[in-house]
């Protein structure tokens, strides 16, 4: 028996390698400087590593798309697009966490390596060319998050968030794995492109496909069961209704920095994986799964927006709002077209800008020992902090989808892709529920501008970096709303593998 040495295309996974080294370096640095004063270098080391990694990803933009490491990961513009998005989210999370953890006087150094490793998990999910890599990415992300969710000096809430997320998350992982096993059993391969070829999809980047069954001889019943289980497993990570029950509790209990990370980064990663799996492996079965996903999307949008109406805690409200936005993103996958995939990428960027901005304001307004997350805490904010109030209002309008913000343009692209694919009713349901969502977003604006402050609050030192994030996000929300062309062009180029 002889083997050929596998070709090691290190450059293709260079952004991930840099992140691995960053995670290990912060781990070692934390051992060397274990005191609290040593935390700032850890934060900067993480940001620096993420910047180098992002720089490499940008430099790879014109590299030819290819599969690497025995067809396990794909190095293409889709991967690079999401890599850069995830790295921006990670850097912003570091800034949030640095402020918040220092304020809480609880600053374990493990936070930074765990964050770096969970970012690698997200990149793997977007880069996966094989269902096994999807599974490993999901698990790497989730296992780090189980710990990060429980990070706090306060014991009860974060602890319960952690155990709830852990039990339900591992439960969903088991479903994801069973789905992968059934897909493997019915097609003889776990490579996404090879599954697609066995189902008669036109080729794209396809590897060797040893062992895959011949085109047309797939055990269909088992395959459909496997697809259903994949929807359960990935839908859980994306917080789709009816697999969303963990999300509001975890979002409320976790530190605000991690809530922001999860509601933006993890969600985008789950949709990147969903898009890869469904549009590379199962495009020929779109008539079978798109109706199922359309129903899930409708239920998700309606449930998220309806329950958000009754929330008094802003983190919980943003949690339900992020469920509703998962519904909008799923509409883009239902369309199963190139335009739909591009609109998903655009919406992911826009959603990152508006949601990270909103969470930045939540972080800035919190203080040591009390997070101040009741919506009534925002009463009269326009009198005390006019700039913060204006930014928060911008983010609320954007989340509600009011022009000329990115929220409006993103919804426009997503819903028009659905209409082009023949899902007019789905687009109408999305429009109706997003009109209803304006009520709870604008309630925050109403509190800030129309209600007098209920107490005199001592002014506190502004958080430079977090305020900077909020300002940049505010500009991005408007700029992308007025000039969406650039990002749309990039998103279209990144999804050229979708036919």
């Amino acid at each position: 028996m002889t083997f050929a040495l596998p070709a090691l295309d290190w450059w293709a996974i260079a952004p991930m390698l840099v992140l691995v080294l960053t995670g290990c370096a912060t781990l070692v640095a934390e051992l060397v400087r274990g005191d609290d004063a040593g935390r700032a270098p850890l934060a900067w080391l993480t940001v620096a590593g993420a910047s180098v990694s992002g720089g490499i990803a940008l430099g790879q933009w014109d590299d030819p798309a290819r599969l690497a490491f025995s067809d396990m990961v794909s190095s293409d513009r889709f991967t690079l697009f999401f890599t850069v998005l995830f790295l921006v989210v990670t850097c912003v999370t570091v800034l949030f966490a640095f402020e918040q953890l220092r304020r809480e006087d609880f600053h374990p150094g493990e936070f930074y390596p765990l964050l770096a490793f969970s970012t690698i998990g997200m990149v793997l999910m977007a880069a996966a060319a094989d269902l096994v890599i999807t599974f490993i990415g999901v698990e790497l992300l989730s296992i780090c998050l189980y710990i990060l969710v429980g990070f706090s000096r306060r014991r009860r809430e974060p602890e319960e968030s952690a155990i709830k997320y852990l039990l339900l998350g591992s439960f969903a992982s088991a479903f994801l794995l069973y789905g992968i096993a059934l897909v493997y059993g019915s097609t003889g391969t776990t490579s996404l492109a090879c599954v697609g070829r066995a189902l008669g999809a036109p080729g794209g980047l396809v590897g060797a496909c040893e062992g895959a069954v011949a085109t047309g001889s797939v055990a269909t019943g088992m395959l459909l069961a496997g697809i259903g289980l994949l929807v359960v497993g990935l839908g859980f990570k994306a917080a789709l209704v009816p697999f969303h029950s963990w999300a509001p509790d975890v979002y409320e209990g976790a530190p605000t920095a991690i809530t922001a990370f999860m509601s933006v980064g993890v969600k985008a990663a789950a949709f990147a994986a969903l898009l890869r799996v469904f549009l590379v492996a199962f495009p020929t079965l779109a008539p079978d799964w798109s109706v199922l996903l359309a129903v899930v999307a409708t239920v998700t949008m309606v449930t998220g927006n309806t329950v958000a109406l009754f929330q008094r805690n802003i983190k919980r409200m943003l949690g339900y709002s992020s469920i509703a936005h998962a519904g909008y993103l799923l509409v883009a996958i239902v369309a199963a077209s190139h335009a739909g995939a591009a609109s998903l990428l655009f919406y992911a960027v826009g959603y990152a800008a508006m949601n990270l901005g909103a969470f930045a304001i939540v972080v800035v307004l919190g203080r040591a020992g009390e997070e101040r997350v009741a919506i009534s805490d925002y009463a009269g904010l326009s009198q005390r902090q006019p700039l913060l109030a204006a930014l928060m209002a911008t983010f609320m309008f954007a989340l509600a989808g009011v022009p000329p913000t990115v929220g409006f343009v993103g919804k426009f692209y997503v819903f028009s892709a659905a209409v082009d694919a023949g899902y007019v009713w789905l687009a109408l349901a999305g429009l109706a529920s997003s009109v209803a969502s304006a009520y709870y977003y604008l309630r925050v604006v109403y509190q800030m501008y129309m209600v007098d402050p209920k107490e005199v609050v001592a002014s506190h030192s502004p958080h430079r970096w977090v305020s900077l994030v909020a300002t940049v996000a505010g500009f991005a929300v408007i700029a992308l709303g007025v000039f969406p062309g650039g990002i749309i062009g990039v998103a279209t180029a990144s999804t050229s593998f979708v036919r």
Partner: protein
Amino acid sequence: MAFDFVPILIQALVAIIIAVGVIVIAHLIGSRNPTPAKLAPYECGMSPVGQAWRRFPIKFFLTAMLFVLFDIEVIFFVPWAAVLRHLRAGGSEYVLFALGEMAVFVGFLALGYVYILKKRALEWEA
């Protein structure tokens, strides 16, 4: 189909018969001379005190968890060892490749080991 498991069934029956038989025969022909020491459960020479279901020091859990992690990681040595013999036939380039791969893997494990040592997770008297 149904006959596939007949041997297993027979084996299970034999096992049950032997187990039950030994107990019954011991009861029938054994002599009985109970003393308190003989009636006490055997516990390695220690006097049995309290219930078995009690709280263990948290240290047991910590060590056990770390053991599980490192124990399972060794699973990746098995396929590596299985192909190493074939790789040797390919010449020094192949052997270097195999050693390099394992060096990276062991390097990450060693980093984890150094980490838990430095964090004093393995010191019993903390």
